[in-house]
């Protein structure tokens, strides 16, 4: 194993594991001692056995393309991303603070809308939100919580500051890869887990189960929890099946469920209908109930909203929670935290320009070559433009889109997002990455230890989404002696 000094000299970003003299940072010290002691070629051998293991375990995701849907093996880099526990603790606190505030915000929007009346949040932003569901007005779910599972994307800038890139409050995915990555690492590098104090990640399924079970309308009985999946052709099907298996929950498709005239949800079993208490749905709002939302949806369950409104079933995340999962709403999160919690945000937002404001829009249009512009309601890296990397023509076309619908766009300066050493042949090269921790809120709060690190495998690339060729790394939160 050797570090590619050529590539590292060119690297202007902050590196997670190596300082600017390419010496390991404190948290990565033990890892590098271990790596340096390996025989030449050893790392490459282990990488190969990882690839074989991933193929055999059938850890895949589906890529949708015109040539048909392809089942691809999950690209994985065997060099972990390491973070000191001390730093992580502060991040965890910030993530929890954020989710508490967002849930208060969502509940307020669907009820009294005090934040609008008090002039902190503009009514026209709400009016333009695709994810606000009029059908959810007047409802307060259990614990006042709408987003029970949140995946928040974090990046680190050149100076070492951690920023929140976005909050995913609809159906965030990736947690199963976080869990499987750790399993693979333990299989391949058992020795290092003995010498290094790496915090475990595997209590997530239990925590998720407890968070879901707490939503059951039947207190005192063992609740029937179901994971609702769109089916095997969904790119995250692997995860749906994995989580159901880990939680001992039932994996159901829409056609397995029915809502009867008593507003109760039942699943169809070989012994007849059986009551379902909590649904962890992995289907977008639009598709969950053809009676209320898209009538052409065959993935959902007719009457599900009726059952939820009547309090006969718990649904996570609650329908309508996506209203806060909007890149324009995102820019208001620091104010939202101050308004509801009377606190300063622990985690910073990336400075943002809202195209709905005339001055911001003019700035965005004249600085397109320096900014990243994102549509408000897309996820997975679709529909955005990275100004400095786009052609002149692409920028012109995008400017038209912004002028046509300014409410739908927000822009941010291009951050120099951090890198970590990634194996390329037998040498370590810097590759850009982000971090997606998962936070749960129900009867209690919980955050994963670390999260899913996604890495852009191509040199210089900033796109980490698996649907666009990104890979992942195991994420280690380690105790350091300081």
């Amino acid at each position, binding site marked *: 194993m050797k570090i590619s000094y050529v590539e590292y000299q060119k690297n202007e970003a902050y590196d997670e594991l190596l300082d600017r003299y390419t010496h390991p940072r404190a948290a990565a010290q033990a890892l590098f001692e271990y790596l340096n002691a390996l025989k030449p070629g050893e790392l490459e051998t282990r990488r190969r056995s990882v690839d074989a293991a991933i*193929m*055999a*375990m*059938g850890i895949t995701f589906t890529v949708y393309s015109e040539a048909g849907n392809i089942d691809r093996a999950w690209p994985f880099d065997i060099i972990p991303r390491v973070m000191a526990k001390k730093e992580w603790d502060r991040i965890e606190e910030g993530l929890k603070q954020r989710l508490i505030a967002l849930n208060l915000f969502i509940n307020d929007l669907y009820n009294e809308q005090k934040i609008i009346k008090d002039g902190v949040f503009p009514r026209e932003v709400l009016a333009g939100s695709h994810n606000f569901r009029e059908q959810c007005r007047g409802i307060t779910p259990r614990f006042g919580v709408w987003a029970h599972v949140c995946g928040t994307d974090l990046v680190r800038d050149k100076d070492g500051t951690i920023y929140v890139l976005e909050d995913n409050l609809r159906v965030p995915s990736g947690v199963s890869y976080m869990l499987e990555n750790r399993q693979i690492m333990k299989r391949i590098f058992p020795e290092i887990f003995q010498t290094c104090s790496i915090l475990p990640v595997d209590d997530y399924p239990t925590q998720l189960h407890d968070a879901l079970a707490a939503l059951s309308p039947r207190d005192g009985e063992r609740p029937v929890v179901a994971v609702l999946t769109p089916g*095997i052709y969904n790119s995250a*099907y692997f995860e749906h*099946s*994995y989580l*159901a*298996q880990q939680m001992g929950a*039932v*994996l*159901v*498709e829409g*056609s*397995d469920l*029915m809502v*009867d*005239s*008593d507003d*109760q949800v*039942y*699943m*169809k*079993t*070989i*012994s*007849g*209908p059986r009551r379902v208490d909590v649904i962890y749905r992995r289907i977008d709002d639009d598709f969950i109930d053809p009676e209320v939302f898209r009538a052409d949806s*065959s993935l959902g369950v007719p009457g599900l909203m009726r059952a939820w409104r009547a309090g006969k079933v718990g649904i996570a995340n609650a329908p309508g929670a996506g209203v806060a999962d909007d890149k324009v709403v995102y820019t208001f999160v620091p104010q939202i935290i101050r308004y509801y919690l009377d606190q300063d945000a622990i985690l910073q937002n990336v400075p943002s320009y809202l195209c709905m404001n005339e001055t911001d829009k003019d700035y965005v249009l004249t600085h397109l070559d320096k900014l990243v512009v994102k549509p408000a309601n897309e996820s997975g890296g679709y529909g955005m433009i990275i100004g400095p990397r786009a052609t002149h023509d692409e920028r012109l076309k995008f400017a038209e889109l912004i002028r046509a619908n300014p409410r739908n766009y927000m822009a941010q300066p291009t951050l120099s997002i951090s890198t970590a050493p990634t194996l390329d042949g037998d040498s370590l090269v810097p590759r850009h990455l982000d971090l997606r921790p998962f936070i749960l809120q129900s009867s209690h709060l919980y955050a994963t230890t670390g999260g899913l690190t996604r890495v852009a495998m191509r040199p210089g690339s900033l796109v980490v989404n698996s649907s666009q060729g990104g890979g992942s790394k195991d994420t280690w939160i380690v105790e350091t002696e300081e």
Partner: protein
Amino acid sequence: MLSRVAENVYWMARYLERAENTARLINTTTQVLLDLPKEASFGWDILLKVAGLDQLYDEFGKETNEMSIMYFLIEDERNPSGLVSSINCARENSRTFREILPKEFWERVNSLYLYMREHAPRTFQSRASRYEVLNQVIDRCQSLSGLLMGCMSHDLAYQFIELGRSIERADMTTRIVDINSAVLFSKQDMALEPLQERLWMAVLKALSAYQMYRRHVCVHVSGQDVLNFLLQDTHFPRSVRHCLGKIDESLATLPHQAVTLRVARKAWRRMAGLRWEGLTPAVLHEYLDQTQTDLGDIHRTLSNQYFHPPVSTADGPQTTLISSQSEQQA
């Protein structure tokens, strides 16, 4: 247990059994055809008849040479009962209930699928490589069955696996026996006597029954003894009567099984009541046809009772559900 999962488990077992049977049928037939004198040889299309695929094959209007037929039986994905299709379906079905099977099961089904994807083209290089690849398929299917038998709780899901496997198995046995007996009985020429013995031997081998037959029945291979062994033996796991017995046992453990059990027992009684005195080939053929219809009836009642039942809840009104899943290839 979810109705959809029960159906998927059941079909997964049928597809796996079908893949194993198809592979064995092709390998045995190949060996027998090589053994026969030229004038006695029957065509490769006998494989299509046994598999019940002759009509479908005709629709594609292909020639009846070895290569085209093998392609259709092994790789052609337009053939829903082909080897590659069966393995793909078994894997796709397994994906939908990974959470209820032993963890290694999915990895091994997946590995069978990857193996087939890589090696199916080799079955056209030579008969030797075809033999080798198909043998691998048989091995792997058996290792999957063994894994389920040894590592899976014999719960409701397991009973649906047993049902799928037994129905598919009994169906295959009746088909092989039926076609071969038709071929054999029609040739009353005395000169063909030793040839007949060899063909009956092939029938036994196609069902992995040769050794057990010799051990439990007789060293000599005679038509009636073979038929008796494959249809009515109570201990040989591929005999039709044994399979029907297994179906009965599995059904008995399911909830609300009365109707299905009645249909299964009727089939069992019919098979147990078969008498050999004065049995003409034509009557036997009718008998086997009837057994296949019986198996179809068992499948249909299973489907109506467990997979796509009319649904009612405790105090709600009766609701008839329209199946969202199209009937899979029987």
